């Protein structure tokens, strides 16, 4: 009976998927409903899960439910807990879902909806979900060890240390770019800034409540927090309109950047129970709620896709980010298809909660499919906007100027007809004074979400609230990531400093802690500040640097997966990881090298730096810089970006050499050489 149902079900899903793709393909030149896009994506996910992940689980990894997992062996009711697979799916998804899959697809929408959609779908099936699944598997078979430790175990100590340095560098870039997204969203937006600022006292209140007033009653504290958050959202409009309060919350980009740097330094030094834990709960509630609401909203409203399937910017001349479709589309989308960061989560808390090996298929592979679905929805939200509005929000001021009239003129000349009135009306609808050059994805997504959700519930009157709700949702979990990321960065820096001078590595020693925090904040704060004052926009540089770093980390994780497969003597299946590894290395190395050496100054860091430093030496000021000092700063920062990018390239090449060496050695061995825990290692207590 079950077999019959399956025989009937899968062809139906395949046909629904084919019809959806057909609707997308045949609708060229006219508007297509977004539901086709979302349905096509769902069909791909179901089929990939049913067939490809089953193949990986049964043939490649040979999952074995008789092997006790770390959660079973070390069950302590606290960290190591065998967890229901549906619950763990939710937990894993909440941990991997962040701002990345929201921002990347929005930026990539400048090339039209088709290239982004295709890469999000192909990338997740071939690379992203495979990486998350196999890293989780490797970690579970090694007692829940972290990525760094596993690289050390399987590839050797030098690659292990190299990977840690790489992770730290990528963390610093990501903290900077995420903070920059917040800055772009909150600049001159008193309503938004008030709401975000209010989350700080609300979190403190929750923290004190669940530690002192009613210890451990997280549910009550969270209910209070959510009510206060909504109250702050509601009050924000009045605060923004108030003649005395409004201007107090109207800050420039530089002021907000300093505020975030200060916030990061203080938040990361406070005890975790006071602010980090309560904020984390709040942001997780909002994250899950918003993702579900958006999915429902798209199906209820069925908005038409306004963005064409392809725009002329696939040639690399786009205003949002420069560089042609290959390789830059892949670098830009990043997290929604494959994210190196997930390899850190898949080797973090999740492996300690897996109840049975077979659950890893659903949690690891399935969790990444859900993340990809978020990316598809973000792309949809950006593509249901009028393309003119989309470009007004995402092109830098250097391209479109600072007035609605000028922006409408420039964007209409690109072939996306828009009137100044339409731009101003959109700003008014969402309760803001201007929508121009709010790059970074969050505001665009928020406008798209506001349009969809307002049509689903509340109508025009609630659009401004939905917009600020969407901004709140993104800013809240970005700021939580800044707090948590700064702490992790501090531990890593202290770990490295400890090798130089022992007391500096002591995490219980306050001066050493403060030094570690200061160094970490200074590092990402520097890139953030430069991004904010960069007359060329900031996001277009930093996001690509992040994309290169993130995809390189994914490449490193997949190199580990490949090496482990060879060491397990599963060579005949090695293509499962080798194909995505090779593709990631090709795209990221091409992108990395083009970012450094490309002769077009809008792509190559060195070309741009040379142009500005040469002009500065001759005393000329190039627009959009306004002084010789600004010129020199642009030059210096681009040289610095070239160095960071070069470090990523060298790092991944070195890892590649080590992995090849290990693979060849293992290939010659007759027996498996992977360092797995033996299948029947003692249950509970035996492994101390």
């Amino acid at each position, binding site marked *: 009976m079950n077999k019959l149902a399956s025989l009937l079900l899968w062809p139906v899903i395949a046909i629904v998927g084919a019809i959806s793709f057909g609707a997308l393909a045949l609708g060229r030149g006219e508007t297509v409903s977004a539901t086709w896009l979302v349905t096509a994506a769902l069909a791909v996910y179901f089929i990939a899960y049913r067939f490809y992940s089953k193949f990986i689980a049964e043939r490649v990894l040979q999952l074995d439910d008789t092997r006790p997992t770390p959660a079973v062996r070390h069950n302590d009711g606290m960290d190591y807990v065998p967890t229901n697979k549906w619950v763990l799916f939710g937990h894993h998804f909440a941990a991997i879902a962040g701002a990345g899959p929201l921002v990347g697809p929005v930026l990539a929408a400048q090339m039209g909806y088709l290239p982004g959609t295709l890469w999000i779908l192909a990338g997740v099936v071939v690379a992203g979900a495979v990486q998350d699944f196999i890293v989780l598997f490797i970690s579970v078979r090694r007692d829940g060890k972290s990525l760094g430790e596993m690289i050390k175990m399987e590839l050797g100590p030098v690659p292990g240390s190299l990977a840690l340095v790489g992770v730290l560098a990528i963390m610093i870039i*990501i903290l900077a770019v995420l903070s920059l997204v917040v800055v772009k969203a909150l600049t001159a937006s008193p309503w938004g800034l008030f709401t975000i600022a209010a989350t700080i006292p609300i979190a403190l209140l929750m923290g004190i409540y669940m530690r002192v007033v009613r*210890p451990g009653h997280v549910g009550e504290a969270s209910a209070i927090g959510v009510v206060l958050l909504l109250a702050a959202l509601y009050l924000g409009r009045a605060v923004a309109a108030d003649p005395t309060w409004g201007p107090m919350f109207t800050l420039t980009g530089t002021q907000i950047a300093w505020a975030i740097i200060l916030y990061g330094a203080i938040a990361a030094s406070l005890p975790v129970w006071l602010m980090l834990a309560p904020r984390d709960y709040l942001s997780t509630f909002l994250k899950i709620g918003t993702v579900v609401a958006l999915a429902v909203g798209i199906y209820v409203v069925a908005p038409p896709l306004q963005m064409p399937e392809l725009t002329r910017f696939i040639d690399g001349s786009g205003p949002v980010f420069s560089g042609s479709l290959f390789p830059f589309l892949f670098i830009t989308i990043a*997290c929604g298809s494959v994210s190196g960061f997930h390899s850190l989560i898949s080797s973090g808390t999740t492996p300690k909660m897996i109840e049975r090996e077979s659950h890893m298929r659903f949690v690891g592979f399935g969790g990444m499919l859900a993340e990809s679905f978020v990316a598809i929805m973000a792309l949809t939200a950006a593509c249901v906007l009028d393309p003119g509005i989309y470009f007004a929000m995402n092109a830098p001021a250097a391209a479109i100027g600072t007035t609605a009239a000028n922006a409408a003129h420039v964007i209409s000349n690109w072939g996306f007809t828009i009137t100044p009135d339409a731009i101003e009306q959109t700003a008014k609808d969402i309760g803001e004074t201007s929508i121009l050059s709010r790059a970074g994805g969050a505001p665009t997504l928020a406008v798209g979400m506001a349009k969809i959700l307002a049509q689903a519930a509340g109508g025009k009157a609630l659009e401004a609230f939905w917009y600020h709700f969407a901004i709140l949702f993104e800013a809240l979990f970005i700021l939580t*990531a800044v707090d948590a990321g700064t702490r992790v960065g501090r531990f890593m820096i202290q770990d490295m400093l400890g090798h130089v001078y022992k007391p500096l590595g002591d995490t219980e020693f306050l001066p050493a802690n403060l030094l570690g925090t200061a160094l970490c904040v200074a590092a990402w704060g520097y890139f953030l500040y430069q991004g904010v004052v960069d007359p060329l926009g900031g996001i277009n540089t930093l996001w690509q640097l992040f994309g290169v770093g993130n995809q390189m980390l994914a490449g490193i994780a997949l190199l580990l997966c490949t090496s482990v497969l060879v060491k397990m003597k599963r060579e005949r299946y090695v293509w499962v990881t080798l194909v995505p590894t090779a593709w990631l290395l090709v795209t990221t190395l091409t992108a990395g090298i083009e970012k450094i050496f490309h002769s077009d100054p809008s792509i190559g860091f060195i070309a741009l730096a040379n142009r500005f430093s040469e002009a500065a030496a001759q005393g000329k000021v190039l627009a959009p810089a306004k002084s010789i000092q600004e010129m020199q700063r642009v030059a210096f920062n681009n040289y610095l970006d070239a160095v960071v990018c070069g470090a990523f390239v060298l790092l991944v090449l070195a890892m590649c050499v080590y992995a090849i060496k290990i693979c060849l050695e293992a290939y010659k061995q007759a027996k498996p050489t992977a360092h797995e825990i033996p299948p029947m290692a003692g249950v509970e207590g035996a492994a101390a």
Partner: protein
Amino acid sequence: MRRVEPKAAGEAPPAAAEPVARLPGRLRALGQAWRQVVGIPDYERYLEHMAAHHPGDAVLTRREFFACAIDRKYGKSGPRCC
């Protein structure tokens, strides 16, 4: 309506019970699942674990448990996601 004793949190009531009587247990299970999804430490589950696997051992108070679990989760855990 029969109520399940707090000690039995998470355990399903006898299968014979009518759907309404099963409701409190169901709600508790739902609450527990939600806490695990969001990553909130679960004191009741910890108590059950201690009672089942280490009977007679001293257990942490609710306050101590939360302090310890939160410090462990955020203290030196892996990095956040993008």
